[in-house]
């Protein structure tokens, strides 16, 4: 029987409980283009509750749950005054705490950490402007809003718009579209109600 000694050795290692050094799992395996991107965005509360998740790389449901659990553990346990970057499974997670909420973004090892850190802040400022001094409760009861806003800010794991004003304008336009549709609907239902009285 053909045998690969190296293979066997590594196998042995993992069986004996010594953590094997393994290459990080690559979510886009095998054809990841080598340009860098944000792989996912995660908002978790200090209690570990998820407030928003957005995945730009294809993670399965199981992987998503695992990622959240693992990262929650890593990030929530970090004390204050430490740096905003964490090595994680061959990637890097840039995070920042705002009051009770942690904003996290996962990027490639050699991406620009500070740039992403300021994308987070940019996002928070936009939320703040929209909700008027935003707090966790705003994001709980209006989580769908947070998704709309994020979609105007990031797309395909890249920054889409760096002007707060433009994002605010686009979100306001969406809101008014929804508002108009609602009014139309209610006026129609009024008419129907009137007619069927």
């Amino acid at each position, binding site marked *: *029987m*053909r045998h*690969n*000694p*190296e293979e066997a*050795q590594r*196998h042995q290692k993992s069986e004996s409980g*010594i953590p094997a*050094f393994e*290459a990080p799992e690559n979510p*886009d395996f*095998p*054809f990841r*283009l*080598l*340009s860098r991107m944000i792989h996912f965005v995660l908002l978790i509360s200090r209690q570990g509750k*998820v*407030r*928003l998740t*957005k995945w*730009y790389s*294809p*993670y399965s449901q199981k992987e998503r749950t695992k990622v959240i659990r693992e990262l929650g553990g890593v990030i929530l346990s970090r*004390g204050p005054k*430490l*740096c*905003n*970057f964490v*090595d994680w499974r061959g990637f890097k997670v840039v995070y920042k705490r705002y009051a009770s909420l942690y904003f996290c973004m996962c990027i490639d*090892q*050699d991406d*620009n950490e*500070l*740039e992403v*850190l*300021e*994308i987070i*802040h940019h996002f928070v400022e936009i939320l703040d402007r929209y909700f*008027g001094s935003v707090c966790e409760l705003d994001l*709980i*009861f*209006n*989580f769908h*809003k947070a998704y709309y806003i994020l*979609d105007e800010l990031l*797309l*395909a794991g*890249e*920054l*889409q718009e*760096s*002007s*707060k004003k*433009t994002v605010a304008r686009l979100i306001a*336009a*969406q809101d008014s*579209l*929804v*508002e108009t*549709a609602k009014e139309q609907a209610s006026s129609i239902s009024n008419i129907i109600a009137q007619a069927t009285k």
Partner: protein
Amino acid sequence: MSMHGMRGLSVFISEIRNCQNKEQERLRIDKELGNVRNRFKNEKGLTPYEKKKYVWKMLYIYMLGYDVDFGHMEAVSLISAPKYPEKQVGYIVTSCLLNENHDFLRLAINTVRNDIIGRNETFQCLALTMVGNIGGREFAESLAPDVQKLLLSSSCRPLVRKKAALCLLRLYRKNPDIVNVDGWADRMAQLLDERDLGVLTSSMSLLVALASNNHEVYWSCLPKCVKILERLARNQDVPQEYTYYGIPSPWLQVKTMRALQYFPTIEDPNTRRTLFEVLQRILMGTDVVKNVNKNNASHAVLFEALALVMHLDAEKEMMSQCVALLGKFIAVREPNIRYLGLENMTRMLMVTDVQEIIKRHQAQIITSLKDPDVSIRRRALDLLYGMCDVTNAKDIVEELLQYLSSADFTMREELSLKAAILAEKFAPDLSWYVDVILQLIDKAGDFISDDIWFRVVQFVTNNDDLQPYAAAKVKEYLDKSAVHETMVKVSAYILGEYSHLLARRPGCSPKEIFSLLHEKLPTVSTTTIPILLSAYAKILMHTQPPDQELQSQIWSIFNKYESCIDAEIQQRAVEYLALCQRGAALMDILAEMPKFPERKSSLIKRTEYSEGDTAEQSAIKLRAQQQTSNALVVTDQHPANGATSPVPVGQLSLVKVPSMITTENDTSTDHPLSQQNGALSNVDPQPPSADLLSDILGPLAIEGPPGATVQSEHNAVSGLEGGSDAADGSAIVPVDEQTNTVQPIGNIAERFHALCLKDSGVLYEDPYIQIGIKAEWRGHHGRLVLFLGNKNTAPLVSVQAIILPPAHLKVELSLVPDTIPPRAQVQCPLEVVNLRPSRDMAVLDFSYKFGTNMVNVKLRLPATLNKFLQPIQVPAEEFFSQWRSLSGPPLKLQEVIRGIRPMPLPEMANLLNSFRIMNCPGLDPNPNNLVASTTFYSESRPAMLCLVRIETDPADRTQLRMTLASGDPTLTFELKEFIKEQLISIPTAPRSPAPPAAQPTPQIPPNDPAAILAGLLS
């Protein structure tokens, strides 16, 4: 602000929040899920508002971490709602719940396309956003032209165009073919003239991706990037809303500099000068300010500028400026800047001239090793590891040792491994190396893998002058009260071998050494006891004149363990006892261990495996190659004890010492005994002679992993036989000595076999390059694309790919670029035409240079016979009429095949199906038989029907009779042989014949590193 909230949703969220505990929450959620499920079932009664509400509730529940396994269809169906509010919800919830591989997405493609090509701008935006976030290959293929049109359209507003740019980027990532290389270069350049900074930012991201894959085409973008950067850096004509804390879009600046890093050089002197002026400005003009955000943003730009300067290989003066800046950063208190300073300094190690300047900061870096932040400590560790050389190894390793006691558990293994490697690579003297390893074991025994102590044993064995020192040293450690088990192992081994060298020192009489060791026995596990027993036997042998008291003591221990339940211990006890009683024979058999053949440290190899594709790690590897181990690896090579012949300095395999030896091997220690034992009957019944000594000593001197000794008997003699073991290595023959420093990641043969069954995957990977392959097969045509990905931040040069096609294939490889830029992936299409049936294989002869390494591999291409098959289901009548008309040889061949890998019939049918030979159930009335059919495509003849019948014997699954029929005798024969190979072989152990085009394996002695490498590659 209008909140147009949904009352039902808010109430639900409040109720969840009011739950007292997890159990309550779960009950409430289960109730809601039941409710939603019911409502979705009677969809008729649902108003659009309700549907929206329930879909949001689902997303909320999903976010809380509960499984939501229904309702995906409802979310997707909202996409086709006519009104904006529903459509919006449909798009956004779908893109949150599903990923690109979800089947439901396919159902939405048409709706999405209609929204994209429709006139409604808001619908366009929604559709582009979803596709940009979760679009997969199918979306790429069907939507790319429409998305491109939007991006280039002059009538579209910026809000649509910026989304189109990023959407296209996503689709390009999924399938690079969608962007026509020739046509796009000019368009991309035009996009860079865009005035709207939102569109420009998105377009720049697109350029980064395009250029990373194929920079050559996008040369015309380069001067434009420099212009944009200049404009931003000088803050000319940048609208207020695009400045961030006073900095003109830092993100666009970073992106632009990122794009520039994908072009190998800048040739035009004017452009180069302008760029360097801008960079100089950024390097010198970035001050630390109070405002955190401003500071972060300006430093984001600064660090990207640093990366670009490194990439452009600027003049020395500018490089020194960079190092000086980094030196400043690693000393600041602000943790982010310090972290990045350390990280970038590690990257800087790639630049050759600056190492000496970096060394000046050593003390500062060591401070960071004690930082409270583990992220910073890691960076400091990486940097210290990378900058270590002979001049500073002592200091650095001692710092690492000191830090080890306080390091958190997550880092200890890495830390001790790195310390061990540095100690080995750069040791100024051997005794220091022994000190370091013993300290490591003492301080972090739990984290010391076996490799580390195997290695120290190897060095001690091979260096006579080291032996008394090591023996004295381990004795000191044993004198301590608490001793780690690994220390017991290494001490027992060393004292067993060399304690007699200390005999004249106080406290080192055989008796004292024995009792020192024996004290530890009650505290150790069963894996250590055998080593102790060996040590006792050796001590006894060295006690001259014999000490009766010691002898009876040790014999009684052997006696005691003769009935031990652990087979390994029992075996040794029985054998040693018998050996001891043979008197003089003991001397020969228990003589000092022979020298180990020199080889590359398995530790260093391990880090090479473990290191991913990050920049700083490649810096380490690069240095690992630049500075070949000088201190320890090249020791003098005496022929050892006349037992083993001198062996050339090898590269691979690892040291192995007694603890891991399996029973089978141990039995060969003494023939009469093993026969009594019954464990081994095939031992050559000759009395042991001097020549056989090495065999007798075999069990104790086994090299190579334990697995190998179990599975392959002759491997027990020497683990170095890996090379001769690899019959299939012929396909991959390293070109010259230099190649053996680069090792493939993963098993090449396994990768090849996987690719025989599927059409995309990785063909080859090593620390520098990944070669992916993607293939499409149509009839006798095949279109393969090779994806050559450079994993490093330095370019791969002298890239060459030559196809060695067998006679039956016409293969045409498009031009392969000579250079693969840093972190870029290039694609090389390959056209294959099948002329006639044959099992021969095409070979890709691939080589590149990285640093001083020339790497050459020969890889089989998965253009195998089965790729030119198309499964076909033949109706019964036709099958039988064909079968009858193809009456006998050479068109119909029959063979009884033995040695089949036993498998149930359905599995065999699946196997055939996976090779595109379609099982036709029900045609053969005998349930033990299998009938299958397929068609074969070649250029020379029309499609050929092939019929297969396999008759199995339920009583003996290892044999079967196969009959194969087709209209072409060659095809019949080749296909029969092909199927036979598949049935006999195990997928992981390649049996397929080596391609004729490959060079025959040169006659290399089995110990030659190249042969070993070939063995590993196969």
